[in-house]
């Protein structure tokens, strides 16, 4: 019975259009997610590749990334909002970015580390410079894990971006929290379904990207590529 009321709520066009409608909320939600993940990737991918490639600083960097996972996003966002300005988008983007860094860093680092040392050695033997080894050999082989980390980050951020509504911003957290306040369960469940749907769509998209970016040879050689994540 709650199932049918959720379907009803989702089917009602009034809920999708207008200034507070789902379409707008989805757009806001996507914006927070994409900006946060891209920002995190810009920081975490080079760092992860560097640490994996050179092998230096691993303990510190990896340790810090693991510690970051434990930061409660609600706490980070409320604190940053109070410090940097309520209703500013910065705190939310920063908080979500912090959430996204550990999985991306882990993926990049693990990816480079997963390269068979013999292969790296062979590349060196053939005369490749450090840079060439990184970009021509290690990164392509690291792709599955790197993209897997990215996918994991996107999933987490999409689900967590609902917190933005608590500090007064938009996104799909808005219908979720508003519905919660008046115990309008169809609205809460409907918003949750949309978040889940969005996450799945993004994940499918990234899976397609993963398939196209992973070198064919690797795909053929490995039995778990693509679906590894």
């Amino acid at each position, binding site marked *: 019975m709650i199932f049918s009321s959720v379907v009803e709520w989702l089917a009602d066009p009034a809920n999708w259009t207008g200034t507070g409608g789902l379409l707008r909320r989805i757009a806001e939600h996507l914006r927070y997610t994409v900006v946060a993940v891209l920002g995190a990737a810009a920081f975490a991918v080079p760092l992860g590749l560097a640490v994996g490639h050179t092998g230096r600083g691993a303990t510190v960097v990896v340790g810090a990334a693991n510690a970051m996972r434990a930061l409660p996003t609600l706490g980070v966002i409320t604190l940053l909002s109070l410090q940097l300005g309520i209703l500013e988008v910065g705190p939310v983007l920063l908080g979500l970015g912090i959430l996204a860094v550990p999985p991306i860093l882990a993926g990049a680092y693990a990816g480079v580390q997963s390269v068979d040392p013999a292969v790296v050695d062979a590349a060196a033997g053939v005369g490749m410079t450090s840079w060439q080894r990184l970009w021509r050999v290690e990164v392509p082989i690291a792709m599955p894990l790197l993209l897997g980390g990215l996918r994991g980050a996107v999933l987490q951020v999409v689900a967590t971006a609902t917190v933005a509504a608590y500090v007064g911003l938009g996104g799909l957290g808005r219908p979720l929290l*508003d519905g919660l306040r*008046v115990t309008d369960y169809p609205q809460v469940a409907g918003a949750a379904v949309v978040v889940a749907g969005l996450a799945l769509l993004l994940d499918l998209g990234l899976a397609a990207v993963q398939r196209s970016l992973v070198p064919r040879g690797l795909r053929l050689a490995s039995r778990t590529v693509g679906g590894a994540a």
Partner: protein
Amino acid sequence: MTRTWSRLVSALAIAALGVGLAGCGSDDDDPLTGGGTSAPASAGTIVVGSADFTENVLLAEIYAAALRGTGANVTIKPRVGTRETLVKGLQDKSLSVVPEYSGNLLAYLDKTATETAPDEVYDALKSKLPDGLTVLQQSSAEDSDVLVVTQQTAQQNNLTTVEDLGPKCGEFVLGAAGEWKQRWEAKIKELYGCTFKEIRTTDAGGPVTVEALKGGQVQVANLFTTASAVTENNFVQLKDTKRMYPAQNVVPFGRADALTDAARAVLDKVSAALNTQRLTELVARVEVDKENAADVAADFLREAGIG
């Protein structure tokens, strides 16, 4: 084989230690402590709930401290949510009593209610109570919703009352808590001919609403009459001449079977000792001076000679 088992047992012991430390603490029901715990309520415990805005948390602390003075075992569940959640909590016996506001509670229980004066509202409220729930004596202390604008907006548009605002609503965005729309959108249109350009959810008279009004994201905001933000920021309160917001006297709302005679007596004393000015001062101590709500509650009770 035995080695495996002993290892397993040690590991489980460590895990149990961890979980046990956590679990132990919850049974530590020190009745002298303030602050919220989610310790399970045993029989005879009074559970005071509150909504998620500061004043209500303060009132809950006051009720709780007064009730403890009667020797009862009291726990507090602060910031539970809105009225809907609180009522559900009362009905399924998770909560015993909550601080409520006569007018809004009446409007919640009876959407067609038209009473606005304090005594009328209270009498109507008593007649609309769900089974098993009751209200005690109401206080003269009132905390009403109020629509406010910045000094600038008021001057530019000549606004002193909500009637002045009515025809101009279409130019303004309103910032209010998520439930405002459901509760008041139709009523404000009916009484004042007001249809806002947009009703944006900010929060329940909290920092988001204040910030939005100051920053201009919204031009009208719904705050509370006892909130310090109004005076701190020199906002202009628009007079509700047609009494859209009914009288909002503070009144304990709870389960008849959970409130002993001693409990009722002490809460009545609290209601008698509270007035709007006192309440506003107490709220300011928590909101502006950042004092602990339980400390402020204790001071109030001491000064009022209760418990």
